[in-house]
């Protein structure tokens, strides 16, 4: 039980912080609403209203988001490799080059197919 105490403290702290921030915002903040504030937060499309019979909505935002995630994952692997570069040696270098080349192929495809153009 003793070893779990820090986790419980952390949970209590984060819960307290969340309650405090929302409460403080609601109590002290000015309340001037406009259209932009009612939009879906950080999400490229308007989910409603949809045209009758189901319309289509642009997926450009998702494409960008997916590309960003691929970059993200790449970094997740690059950082530990950079830290452990000495112990992995030439094997690590070759494997990482192969990994990056594989990702590069995907980027080349997206680029050639016009996935990087917004309109």
């Amino acid at each position, binding site marked *: 039980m003793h070893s779990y105490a820090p986790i419980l403290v952390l949970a209590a702290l984060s819960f307290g912080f969340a309650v405090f921030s929302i409460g403080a915002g609601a109590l002290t903040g000015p309340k001037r609403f406009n259209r932009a504030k009612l939009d879906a937060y950080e999400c490229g499309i308007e989910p409603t209203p949809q045209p009758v019979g189901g319309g*289509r909505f642009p997926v450009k935002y998702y494409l960008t988001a997916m590309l960003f995630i691929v970059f993200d994952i790449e970094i997740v692997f690059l950082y*530990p490799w950079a*830290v*452990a570069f000495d*112990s*992995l*040696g030439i*094997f*690590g270098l070759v494997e990482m080059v192969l990994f990056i080349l*594989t990702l590069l*192929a*995907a980027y*080349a*495809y997206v*680029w*050639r*197919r016009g996935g990087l153009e917004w309109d």
Partner: protein
Amino acid sequence: MTAAVFDTPSIEYRQLLPILIVLGVALAGVLVEAFMGRRYRHETQLVLALGGLVAAFVAVVATAGDYAVVAEGSVAVDGPGLFLQGTILLLAIPGILTTAERSLDTGGPFAPSGSAMPGSQHERLLTATGVTQTEVFPLLMFAVGGMLLFPVSNDLLTMFVALEVLSLPLYLLCGLARRRRLLSQEASLKYFLLGSFSSAFFLYGVALLYGYAGTVRLSGIADAAGSNAGDETLLLTGTALVAVGLLFKVGAAPFHSWTPDVYQGAPTPITGFMAACTKVAAFGALLRVFYVALGGLAWEWQPILWGVAILTMVVGSVVALTQQDVKRMLAYSSIAHAGFVLVGLVATDSATKDGEILGVSSVLFYLLAYGFSTIGAFAVVTLVRDSAGEATHLSQWAGLAKRSPLTAAVFTFFLAAFAGIPLTSGFTAKFAVFRAAWTGGAWELVVIGVVMSAVAAFFYFRVVVLMFFSAPAPDGPTVVVPSPLTTAAIALGAGVTLLLGVWPTQVLDLAGRASQFVR
């Protein structure tokens, strides 16, 4: 905190070569899509895919006998694994050939642009310019790469990654039919939703088994189960959830409900590819999990798999009786065949003869035999067409023998193989699994299997009677003469079906020698 120490992992590239070749070819296919002119893409992709499959098959043959647990224990290259990899690669060849067929439908069996709305102006324009979809080739090769990894994965996480690598391209491919696009997209969505659901089951089972054994390695789980350490509830629940995920992929009842809809809606070459290759890969993984990791628990899971096998055979055979669509009928027949393969699977290690594990070797042989018959049968379905595309309603097949005796005869031959008539591979394969089950003491399963084969045979022969002894409708479909690609695929399917029926000894021996797992 001390700095983390990285040990250089040892990767045995030689044993992994077949997987690496196929994935490399898939990547090259992506680059072809990116940089090559549209005019040359189709031929380039076809040559690339076929070359990759043949090269990978050569690599599999060259590895034979060189069994080891490789890649830090996450991949087990052994007899059953290599046999199934070879089977998948051989089956993928007719799969690619039917996919590349362009003479039946202008521009091929796939929608020119998957994102164009069905029936829209954009789609009509693309159809009029005769654009061919060539992205299906890299997608298929990625799926094959995942299938090659699936039956050789030696830990549950590698198995999960392989499952996703093989599933994601298939979800997409199911939605790309050129004709009846809404049905195709519906199939794709259903397959995706139910497939992700079953993946979640699998992953949750993996988590529970990890909680039980402290490792995801199959041999580690076997050791933990053997020493009776830990909480047995975790072990049994985890086993059940992993089994649900895998039984979904093989299409066993009661997890079969996606099969008819997806098989009907997907483009027919993809349906044939799925019915053959996905089944082989998924049964490979099922065999490995139940024999390597959970072999010591046979008393626990055998009764459940008995029930699943019986239910699958009964549902597949009986519901097929009422089907009015050729593709749906073949889908239910594939469910019934999954049941027959499960009969071989439950025979377990107890049924051994001269060091050959009959349960494993009979399943290996069955998958090879059934794969070639089913891929050939679906290729024949692509030939019977009217103005709306493939004519899949059974009433449209009436009197087909009068229009094209050869096509009707070949389809009859495949149906005979499904029914298990002697001189076809279906007979040898059924005999092998029933013998394994009989030796393993599961004579009840054998009796039910034989009865269900008879029920299914009734339906297959109703189709034969329909083709040969009914009058053709005046405005019925025509049998289109395909290019050499589909002809080769059908000939390959029929040839192997005949060969394994008449002269199966060599392949049976090979399957027998390849029936030992490494841990």
